[in-house]
């Protein structure tokens, strides 16, 4: 069947069309950040201006959420890197009782819909009388970020040859020296890639966050700020400027993660 070697015209059109369907809508976000019309989504924009970037910069209510989102994503990613790496180190080679159940437990927070994870945490905070704060947001984010780091790290651990650890021990290194000088340099890029993906995921997470942030102003992450603007729009182009920032803050780490792990069998992100 020749068609397997050369794609038919129809297939090419459908495949490339599908890919464009996935990407073209984002361009509108960029276009509308420059429109002079702030009350509707009129197309084509009546005029173009760059003033909204300055307006967004001057808006006090954006900096707090931006800073909070950065902090939450950084701390959640840090926790996820530690916990995910530990889990990966234990699970990579060893077989033990309950191993499959532990794998399931690690995947569950991302496998169940966000609303379930969010509502579960919300119920737990209510039952335990835990007040909402930045830490309740981090608790939720770290939980679903563990699996991201774990997936990247476990693939790298499996690929690493066990003999380098033995060689290190034969040369007199203790376990900690082996970790510091042999394992860590080999794991580095996989952990970095996992961390980048976890950061991107946390930075833009909104569903779980709405359940764990409470209603206070001090607990407003950037995605929650954006959600508010979408439901009750004020200066619409400003929302677009922020959307561009959020988009960049998630796309750049993903590209970096792809670059860090390219060519390997465990290219980052192939299993969300």
């Amino acid at each position: 069947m020749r068609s397997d070697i050369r794609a038919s015209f129809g297939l090419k059109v459908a495949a490339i069309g599908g890919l464009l369907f996935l990407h073209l809508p984002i361009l509108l976000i960029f276009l509308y950040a420059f429109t002079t019309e702030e009350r509707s989504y009129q197309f084509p924009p009546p005029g173009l201006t760059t003033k909204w970037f300055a307006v967004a910069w001057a808006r006090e209510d954006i900096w707090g959420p931006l800073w909070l989102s950065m902090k939450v994503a950084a701390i959640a990613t840090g926790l996820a890197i530690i916990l995910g790496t530990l889990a990966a180190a234990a699970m990579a080679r060893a077989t033990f009782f309950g191993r499959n159940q532990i794998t399931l437990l690690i995947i569950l927070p991302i496998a169940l819909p966000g609303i379930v994870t969010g509502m579960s945490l919300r119920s737990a905070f209510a039952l335990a009388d835990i007040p909402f704060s930045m830490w309740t947001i981090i608790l939720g984010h770290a939980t679903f970020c563990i699996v991201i780091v774990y997936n990247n790290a476990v693939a790298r651990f499996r690929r690493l040859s066990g003999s380098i650890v033995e060689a290190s021990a034969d040369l007199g290194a203790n376990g900690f020296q082996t970790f510091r000088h042999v394992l860590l340099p080999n794991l580095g890029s996989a952990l970095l890639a996992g961390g980048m993906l976890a950061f991107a995921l946390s930075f833009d997470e909104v569903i779980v966050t709405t359940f764990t942030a409470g209603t206070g102003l001090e607990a407003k992450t950037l995605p929650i700020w954006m959600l508010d603007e979408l439901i009750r729009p004020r200066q619409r182009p400003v929302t677009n400027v922020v959307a561009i920032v959020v988009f960049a803050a998630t796309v750049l780490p993903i590209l970096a993660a792809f670059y860090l792990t390219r060519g390997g069998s465990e290219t980052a992100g192939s299993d969300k």
Partner: protein
Amino acid sequence: MTARAILPARGPADRLTALFWRRPNLLLLLLVSPPLLWLGLVYLGSLAALLLQSFYSVDEFSGLVTEELTLKTYGELLRPENLDMILRTVLMAALVTLAAAVLAFPIAWFAARHARGPWKAIFYLGVMLPLWSSYLVRVYAWKLILAKEGIVTWAAEATGTGFVMNGILALPVIGGNSLSTSYIGTFLVFLYVWLPYMILPMQAALERVPTTMLEASADLGATRGQTFRTVVLPLAMPGVIAGSIFTFSLTLGDYIIPQIVGNSARFIGLAVYQQQAYNLPLAAALAMIPIVIMVIYLALARRAGAFDAL
């Protein structure tokens, strides 16, 4: 003088290393317990709290949660408007899943079997980026597209097909004032946002279809259509089912999209979010619905062998 076979321990780090060497299970336990404690405490604990909360009820007069086990809250789920909502959500999830499978197939097939060199990377990133990049921004993009004064209306008028648009919007139930306030709009956004989740597992399954099988099918005289129906589709099915788990589950649990694009009809996720402010037990009981549906779905998928393709 005898050579020392064992070097002296240089400090606590060496002694610990020796201990771990003698008892590898101890090391394993130390490694696995922090993540296990976190997930067990935070996650399983929360799920248990959800289950417990769903058996509580709210006192109608005080509005406070009564911490006594009762089935009253689950009884509220059986009200006709709630049953409607469950049906509506499941129907939407099923339609989104079907449409995603149809739309994803050519992309997955091309990426798996035809893309070479730079195209391989383009397709890989082209699917991966939307999967990971900001969900909210991508939903917002569709609010811009579907708005009454937006690009779709403009394009329809510019091409003289405005009457088609009006015809579609005039359809009962799925139509509406504009695309951004209709079921069609909600459906399109769901489809757009979850499509990458269908492409990836499908592509993984298609990559494993051996070329020799396609050749054998052709040698035996099958047309392309026959090969597709009798060889490719059955082999790709586990991937399709794996992808459908994502699209189905994500649609079932989403509450942002129907809130931003749609006719304000309630979906399960939206109901959970609205109730959590007033009636925590009811919100918890509502959140149990997607769990139950997904457990049933996963059991069916498992039987179909979907987990080999994950």
